[in-house]
């Protein structure tokens, strides 16, 4: 499958929270099923990336996804996880225009600002829209390793069902110590997307550094 886009990032975070399965189902198209972490609780992924090299130069991106099962082929080519992004926002109008056209990610029309504040023990990400706070997310590291993850992203273009394979490589840490935290503020971007409680603590914290995110060409499924 040809590579469409490659983005180099300084920092990337994906924090997993449990959310009501009824909310997850409401966000997903008919052909996708949410993964349940426990009965009636599915997985909300909150992803934030600080890209330092791309076709549009450096920018930041925030993305909310429901975690879904990847589609299995031969296991060796099998993605570790699947995502259905239902809300995205970036600091760059050009970045969201390009990614929107190529991948049909559901971008919020207005730009955001994101601060990545890193200390030894914690990474704090503060996201603002027109000066108003949207999200404050903290994650913590476990053991670091260098790795490559193969993932699948699922999108819709009208009634068309689409899938892309993406590969994230770089320094990586993951754990389930519930040491992170997220605060969502009332904002146009986040309002109304979830009707029930989302845990304020991520049950799994992924943190990437100094890597690349590579998107493969979209497929119709």
């Amino acid at each position, binding site marked *: 499958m040809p590579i469409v886009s490659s983005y180099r990032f300084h920092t990337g975070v994906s924090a997993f929270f449990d959310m009501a399965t009824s909310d997850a189902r409401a966000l997903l198209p008919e052909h996708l*099923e949410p*993964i349940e972490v*426990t*009965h*009636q*609780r599915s997985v909300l992924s909150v992803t934030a990336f600080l890209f330092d090299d791309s076709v549009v130069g450096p920018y930041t991106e925030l993305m909310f996804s429901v975690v879904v*099962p*990847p*589609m*299995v*082929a*031969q*296991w*060796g080519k*099998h993605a*570790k996880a699947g995502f259905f992004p239902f809300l995205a926002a970036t600091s760059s109008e050009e970045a969201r225009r390009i990614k929107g056209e190529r991948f049909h990610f559901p971008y919020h029309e207005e730009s955001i600002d994101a601060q990545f504040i890193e200390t030894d023990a914690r990474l704090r990400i503060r996201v603002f829209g027109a000066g108003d706070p949207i999200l404050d997310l903290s994650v913590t590291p*476990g*053991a670091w*390793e260098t*790795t490559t993850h193969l993932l699948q992203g699922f999108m819709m273009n009208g009634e068309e069902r689409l899938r892309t394979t993406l590969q994230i490589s770089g320094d990586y840490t*993951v*754990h*389930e*110590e*519930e040491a992170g935290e997220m605060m969502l503020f009332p904002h146009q971007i986040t309002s109304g997307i979830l009707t029930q409680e989302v845990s304020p603590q991520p*049950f*799994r914290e992924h943190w990437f550094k100094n890597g690349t995110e590579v998107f493969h060409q979209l497929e119709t*499924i």
Partner: protein
Amino acid sequence: MSERTKETSATAVDIESAAPGTEGRRVDVDGTTEMIEQARPEALEYDYTNFYFGAGDDAFALLEPFDDWWEEVQPAGYYLYELPLHSAPGTRVDVKDTKTGDIRRGLVNFASYNYLGLSYRPEVKEAIKEAADTYGGGSSGSPILSGTTALHRRFAREIADFKGKEDALIFPTGYSANVGTIAGLMRSGDLIVADQYAHASIVDGMILSKAKSRFFRHNRPDDLERKLSGFEGKKLVIIEGVYSMDGDLPPLAEIVEICRRHGARLMIDEAHSAFVFGETGKGVTEHLGLDEEVDIHLGTFSKSLGGQGGYIAGSRRLVNYLRGFSRSRFFSCALSPVIVAGLRKALELAREEPELRERLWENVAYMRQLLGEAEVPTGDSESQVIPIMVRDDARIFSMAEEIFREGVFINPVKYPAVGKHKSRFRMSISAAHSREELEEGAEKIVKVLRRYEICP
């Protein structure tokens, strides 16, 4: 991938990378270097969760990719599960190494639940033989039809008496006890709140009941309170006496208080704590002085009594209702009378020999001391279940393999059974372990853990 080569070697411990082009490592055991081939690293990053869903309309679509993956990872560590024992689950066991075909004899056993060492006691075996002569092998029917024998009736009364409750109901397994009790009692529109570390049988019971299900953070009463708040209707809270992967106990007094305040019934699964905790062995509820505050007492016979089956104990009305509504019992064959006879004798021994519990707790304390002196991390365990916290998902199978070859039978536990980076060995201590066995087992485990720098 499963082939193994042997070559002679110096006796020094030697772990090194395999030759280029192969994935593997060499492990020196008793002067023989065993070349253990490894799966590709990416193969071990996958687990069962990756093969749960799949695209396509064929119900068998996942079989081939799972099989391909399994072929690669099974010899790299997954083979360590379901190894066949060639002996009783005593303090030492003979275990077939399915990778080599060898039977490894006399391994110190920390993998069995036989906490009081009752399953192979001569008195138990004799009772089983007598019952086999009288009743034959099986009960040949559902407990509500033809499967109940006089032994079943007596045993249920004995369990109720032991637990100090009005009545008890016997189930064919602990799994069916949880599923049948929860789904038998709760309905669509009700609320069940369970600890997030609750056993799979509790979760499956919640699913089958169709009630609204919530999980509170492990041992966090404040989160339980939040999950109960605002709900009007029937409520059931479910906790465990000893959590099987961590060996810790629930904060029962706080949970009881919250349940009472919210009008919720409280159920405790004492699978790992009944017959060992408390002055008379009733369980953690007795140990914490709150036995009468819990509404449903559930347990199993496969752990401390060394047999098989499960039970609930409580009020006469509770048992009477569940006798009619526990589908997992209703539609299963009753426990074999042979098993029941062994359980009756095991219960009798557990009641008559409180020194078994004393010895168990002495052994637990001694093992804690041995592991503590070696600075082995053991988490928050307060029980005979001691987790050895390795926290290395990538290397736990390698450690497990080396511990197995050193002469210790103990189960590795990794994601998804526990969280990411929470890999561990689950050590089960028995009253039957001798001091020498505890020392030998600890020494061999520590020797391997040191190689991996899990302890200094």
